């Protein structure tokens, strides 16, 4: 079963706000000068910001903000966020891999930005809605 796709727009302002909320002030997430110095095309989103957006999608699919019992991802490609008003977009899709007898649903999740997968082996286990 395929779950409805969700698209998240990500701008520089979102990264600054996430940096403040999470305490992750690594300059590759806000300084083009630093990002290009370490070989990146420009400022990139925090991997944990992408993981948080995908977690939101999963919780919304599950129908409860506290439904996720296990959640893991591998970060495969950076999400480059240009310094403009549009930013970039991350598209999240998922399909149900398994529904267990003890009321858990296992999802395989895909997150794509600019036509490339930015996560691999992204999996979430959620409690089936009460």
């Amino acid at each position: 079963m395929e779950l409805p796709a969700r698209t998240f727009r990500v701008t520089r302002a979102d990264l600054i706000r996430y940096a403040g909320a999470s305490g992750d002030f690594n300059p590759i997430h806000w300084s083009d000068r630093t990002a290009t110095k370490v070989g990146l095309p420009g400022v990139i989103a925090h991997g944990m910001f992408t993981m948080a957006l995908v977690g939101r999608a999963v919780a919304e699919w599950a129908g409860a903000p506290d439904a996720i019992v296990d959640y893991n991802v591998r970060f495969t490609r950076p999400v480059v966020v240009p310094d403009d008003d549009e930013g970039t977009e991350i598209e999240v899709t998922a399909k149900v891999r398994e529904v267990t007898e003890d009321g858990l649903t296992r999802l395989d999740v895909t997150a794509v930005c600019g036509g490339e997968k930015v996560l691999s082996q992204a999996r979430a286990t959620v409690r089936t809605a009460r």
Partner: protein
Amino acid sequence: MSLDPSFVGRTYPPTAPYQVGREKIREFASAIGAADPAHHDPAAARALGHQDVVAPPTFPIVLTLAASQQIIDDPDLGVDYSRVVHGDQRFAYTRPVVAGDELVCVSVIDDVSSRGGHGFLTTRTEVATAAGEPVVTVWSKLVVRGEG
């Protein structure tokens, strides 16, 4: 970057208790656009059976990033932080984090390896209440990129 495999199993001292605040959860939820009332309104959270607002699933990174810093900063292990890239991340929850929790992190080195000139470091952080109730286990795999 080659890391010493004899560090596998090393456990670091518990962190000072972190007081999970209602406003911090609201701030984090707002920053990721999580609008569910249970992240913002204590009454909505109580209706789901929680004592106060519920943190979004990746919120524990706020604590564990700081907790695993003591591993990254361990001079004996010798990680060059400017070369660290986030590889994998996992959260396994006993229950969600809620406002009012007082949480302590204990970090362990689960795995160390080197491959293709890069070092790989897997840390596991057990997050529990100050009273010892387990809340969430958090794994981070960090890649320490080799020179050139």
